[in-house]
C-alpha cells in the first residue's frame, strides 16, 4: 500500500546552483521518492514520497550527507 506524502522543506542557503541540481537528482534517486524539486531562489525542497518505503528521516539524512541541513519542513498529503 503506497502511502504518498508531500513534504516542503526549507534548506540552509544553497551555495551553488549546481548544488541545487545535485540535491534534486540525488533525492530523486532514493527508493520510494516519486518526485523532487529544489528551488534554488528560495532554498526550498519539495518532495513527494511513499511513506511505506522511505521515511522523511532517510531523506533528511541523504541531504545531510551531501552537506546541507534542513531548517524547517511542512507536510501535506
Amino acid at each position, binding site marked *: 500500500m503506497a502511502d504518498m506524502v508531500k513534504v516542503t522543506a526549507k534548506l540552509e542557503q544553497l*551555495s*551553488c*546552483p549546481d548544488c541545487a541540481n*545535485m540535491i534534486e*537528482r*540525488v533525492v530523486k534517486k532514493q527508493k520510494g521518492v516519486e518526485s523532487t524539486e529544489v528551488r534554488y*531562489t528560495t532554498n526550498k525542497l519539495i518532495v513527494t514520497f511513499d511513506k511505506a518505503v522511505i521515511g522523511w528521516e532517510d531523506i533528511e539524512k541523504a541531504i545531510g*550527507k551531501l552537506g546541507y541541513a534542513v531548517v524547517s519542513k511542512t507536510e501535506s498529503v
Partner: protein
Amino acid sequence: MGIWLRKNEKLAVLIISGLLIALAFLVTPYSQNGRTVLMIVAAVVSGFRIAQTALFALQSGVVSIQLLVTIAAVGGIAIGNPWEAAAVTFLFAFGGYLEARTIGKTREAIQQLLNLAPASATVLRGGEELVVDPEEVMVGETVVVRSGGKIPVDGIVSKGTASVNQAAITGESAPLDVSSGNKVFSGSLLEAGYVEITAERVGDDTTFARILHMVEEAQERKAPTQKFIERFARWYTPGIILLSLAVGIFTRNLHMALTLLVIGCPGALVISTPISMVAGIGNAAKNGILVKGGEFLEKAGKVTVVAFDKTGTLTEGKPALTGVMSLDVSESELLQLAASVEKGSEHHIGRAIVSGSKGAALSSVDEVQVFAGGGIRGLVEGRHILVGNRRLFAENHISVPDPVEAWMQERENRGETPVLVASDCVTIGSLSIADTLREEAADAVAGLKRAGKRVIMLTGDNPRTARATADKLGLDDFRAQLLPEDKVKAIQELRASGAFVAMVGDGINDTPALAESDLGIAMGAAGTDAAIETADLALMSDNLSKVTYAFQLGKATLANIRQNVAFAVAVVFLLVIGVLGQKVFLATGMLAHEASVMLVILNALRLRTWKGK
C-alpha cells in the same frame, strides 16, 4: 568554541586551509617537502566535505561538480602539483561560502517584510485584555493596539484614533490617520494613538500574509528567459563533457581535459536570470508593488502602450453630484426619484446620486432592472423611473429636449458625466456627476510619455467628457463609450497592431480587460482580493506614480539579466579558449569561474537598492 565550530564549520574550514596555504608559501624557500605536505593538508581540509558530497552523490549515480573538483584535486596531488589541489578545493569552498552569503542578501527585502509580521495580538475577551498569537484571534473579536504596536489583523477601527504606517502593505511611508470606521491592515505599525479594531481577517487570510505568500511564489516562478537558459544548459553541459573527452583523447592531456570540465560548469549562466528576478521582485514588494512572477517583471520592461481605465484609476473614484437640471419637476423631486431607484446600486454614478440626495426621504423601489453600461430602471411611487445615458434613452425611444441636451453638452465639456432621468418615458431632467482627477495623474502620464510610451484611456464615459479629461492629462488617445466587452476588444485591437499593452485598472469592473492585456495592473489592491488574483502586477496603494516605477524597475531588471547572461557566456567562452590555448590552468580557471558567479550575484544585488529614475 565547540558550538561556534559546529555552527560555522564552513568558515572554520576556510580559515584553516587558507592559513595552511599561506604557511606553505612561507616555508617554500626553506623546504620543498614542507610546502608539499602543507599544501596536501590544506587540500584535504577544504576538500574533505567536497569529496564526501561527491562520493555520496556518486553512490546515487549523480555526477556532481564536487566530483570534478575532487578528481582535479586528487589528480593534482598525483601529478606532483599539490598547490593546484589546494587552490581548487579552497577556491571552490570559498566561492560557495561567499555565494551563499550574498544570495541571501537578494532576499533581504522579503525578509524585512517578514520581520514586520505581528508576533502577538492583544484581544478583548470578557472585558479583559489577553495577549495571544495573532492566528488565534477570531473573526469578530476586538483587538487593542497602542502606540508602537503592530496591527495584528485586518479589520475595522471601532474605537479610538491613531496614526498608522502601512508601508508593509502599500509601500507608502507617510502615516495615515485612522479613526472609527476606517479599514486597517495587519502588518501596519501604529505610530501614535490607541485603537480598538474589529477583526475581519486573521492569520493566513490577511492581506499581508497573502502578499508574503504570493511574493514567495513569484520568486519561484520561472521566467521565459530562465526556461530558455535551462534548455540551453541541457545541451551545453553534455557538450562540455564531450569536448573534454575529445580533448583528453586527442591531446592525451588529462590535465587540460579536467580543467575544461571544472570551468565549463555553467554556474553563472544558470543563476543569471533568477537571481536578478528575485532581487527585482523584492525591490518591487518593498515599494508596494506585488509582482506575480518574474515573467511579469520582464514584461513590464517591454510595455509600449499603457491603457488606463478612467474612473478609480486616473480619477479618485469618488464621484460626486455637481449639478441638477430639471424640466417640469422641482430639482429636489428629480433628485429624490433618481436616488430612490439608485438606492441599492453598486455603480459609482448611482452611489454619487444617492449621496448627493442627502437628507431626502427615499421611496421604496420595485422591479429594479440594471442595464450594464447604460443605466437603471425601477418603479417608484407608481412611476417608471429610468436613469441612464443617451444610448439607453435612444434604445427606449425617449427623446431628449434641446435645453437638456445643451445643458449636458456644457457639462461634458468640463469633463463631467451627466445622466438623463425619465419618468414614464418622458425626460424630466439631468444630473451631472464629476470625479476628481488624481493629484499625480498628469505627472504620471507625462512621465510615461517621456519614457516613450503611448498613453491612452479606455472609458465608459461619453466622448465629450472623455476628451475633456484626455486634454487635461495630455493623453495620446482615448476610446469613449465603451462597455466592459468593448474594452476587451480595444485591447485586442491594440495588441493586433503590434503594441505591447499594459492595462491599468482598479481590478473590479475591468477584470476582463486586465486579463486580455499583455500585462494587467491593478491599483489600490490592498484589501481587494479580486484585484490581487487577476492582475499580473498589483499596486497596493492608489499612487499612480508606482505604475511608472514598475515599468522602470522592469526595464532595469531586464537590463540586469542581459548583462548577467552576456557576462556569463563571455567568461565561459574566454575560459574555454584560454584552456585550449594552454593559457589558463586549473587554479586560475577555478578562480575565474567562482569570480564570475560572484560578480553575477553582486550585479543582481544592485537591483535591491535601485531607487528609480
